[in-house]
């Protein structure tokens, strides 16, 4: 801890899925905090529930029980519509397969989250250009995803994640589809987001090298949290 307050508080989170008549528990009594400005890696074998936990923190899925407090808001209490608005303002998303819209340019992809912001056209342009400058893609504004490499696409996705200046950034296997060099670039960029911009990042990964960039690593196994080794902070 460095004296900062927790930005994410998870208390007794349980989540299960219904498959036919079968109830499959995915997360069992998860409790922990994430401090503002922290870079946390969630690791665990496939099916351990790490992506589900990430989805719950990001407000794209709902827990069966427990409390999820993000930046002072109990997101479990929000309706679907309120959650959508909350996500737009507070969460930046980075996906394994970038999930850019192929028919929009890099600029337009990054601009997407701002369409819900009520900013003027000029303000949006300024935000988008800043975000793309941070990820070193100022020269690729008009390029379509298909014209960019995997690493560049992921950098566009990161620009899209930070353009609204969200409270937290969630990343699901952000280097899972990249070669080693591109993966290093992305991890370096995420590191910069934490150290230079003070962003809080929660990253799901299988890759120990990626997890090594995080300040903390938490291990999930069969829906139960095991305290993992702490990285240098």
């Amino acid at each position, binding site marked *: 801890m460095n004296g900062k307050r927790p930005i994410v508080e998870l208390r007794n989170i349980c989540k299960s899925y219904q498959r036919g008549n079968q109830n499959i528990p995915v997360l069992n009594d998860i409790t922990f905090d994430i401090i503002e400005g922290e870079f946390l890696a969630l690791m665990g074998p496939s099916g351990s529930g790490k992506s589900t936990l990430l989805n719950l923190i*990001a407000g794209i899925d709902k827990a069966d029980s427990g409390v999820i407090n993000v930046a002072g808001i109990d997101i479990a209490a929000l309706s679907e*519509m309120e959650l959508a608005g909350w*996500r737009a303002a507070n969460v930046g998303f980075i*996906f*394994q397969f970038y*999930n850019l819209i192929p028919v929009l340019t890099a600029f337009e992809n990054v*601009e997407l989250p701002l369409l*819900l912001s009520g900013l003027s056209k000029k303000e949006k342009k300024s935000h988008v250009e800043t975000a793309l400058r941070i990820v070193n893609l100022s020269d690729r504004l008009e390029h379509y995803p298909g014209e960019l490499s995997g690493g560049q696409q992921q950098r566009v996705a990161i620009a899209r994640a930070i353009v609204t200046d969200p409270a937290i950034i969630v990343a699901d296997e952000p280097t899972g589809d990249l070669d080693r060099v591109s993966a290093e670039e992305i991890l370096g960029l995420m590191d910069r987001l934490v150290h230079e911009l003070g962003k809080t990042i929660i990253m799901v990964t299988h890759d120990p090298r990626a997890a090594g960039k995080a300040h903390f690593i938490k291990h999930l196994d069969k829906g139960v949290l095991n305290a993992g080794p702490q990285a240098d902070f």
Partner: protein
Amino acid sequence: MQVLKLIFKNAFRHRLRTFLTIAGISIAILAFGLLRTVVDAWYAGVEASAANRLVSRNAISLIFPLPLSYKEKIRQVDGVTVVSYGNWFGGIYIDEKNFFPNFAVEPKSYLELYPEYVFQPDQLAALLRDRKGFAAGRKLADKYKWKPGDTVILKGTIFPGEWEFVLRGIYKGRTKSVDETQFFFHWDYLNETLKKTIAARADQVGFYMIGVKNPNIASNVTAAIDKTFKNSLAETLTETEKAFQMSFISMSEAIVIAIQLVSFVVIIIIMAVMANTMAMSARERIGEYAVFKTLGFGGMYIAVLVFGESLFISATGCVIGTILTFPAAKAFGNEMSQFFPIFNVSVNTIYLDVAAAFVIGITAAIIPTYRAVSIRIADGLRRIG
């Protein structure tokens, strides 16, 4: 603005599929428009009928004549302004395939009843003056390249012999809905000839055309005329011109209904094709819709994307199909002019085209939109990769 751009770009992601779908819709709209125009053409005579014109014929059947002497009695009925009369001549020009309607009428009163036939004054005067003269509609004269002064011979079928006429007037329709393929000549010419050849058939007419003061009294006048000739040797059946024309349509009503059904079946088929296109597109983009939802966009935004794309494709097909309908209808109308003298694409048909395209666009998007909007984000994101 970006929504419109996205809709447009989405629509052309699979260009071949989109072009084929647009082509399909265009052809369906074209077929629908042509079939609706055929139906309109079927009813053209009814539509061109005036509410203040009545037709009186033999109550037994149209093929039985009425005495010429009824003319004065009909004229005396309250509310009657003009009485004209005529016979279906049924003559053949050179060959049977050259069919066009031809009548023997009393031209002065007939043209008083049909002001929609517009003549040049000198041609009208010549027509009224020359007992062997005949009038032809512009389309008919153009088709056979007749000019005023030309002699035309019709071979009689109902009235045997070769009948020689001189073209004295070419009329134009006051509106597009006026039949310009008619041929009519002096009833007196027919009657005088019959007196010499088949005297028993002289002084008899096939029908009376009657003008009334105003349409509101038409039913009283029809009743009064029929009452006048009740229990005579030739009782009359009088009805409005519209009802008279409808009696011909009703004989072929089953065909008209079949054409109408086919026109709607065409739309239903293309609706299924369009729905398939939209279902494929939405299924391929389900991950993107999940991304939109992740970023905070609501179901309405996604619905606008899917409906917008569907409506854009159907509207494009509609515009192309509607534009093509006009030359196609012109070509079809020229080829079929002897069956459909009036073959115009009506404003109503255009409205129906637009409505059909709108229904296609909306219907095709309903299920894909429901799926896109209702999918859980986590499930949608899982489809990527």
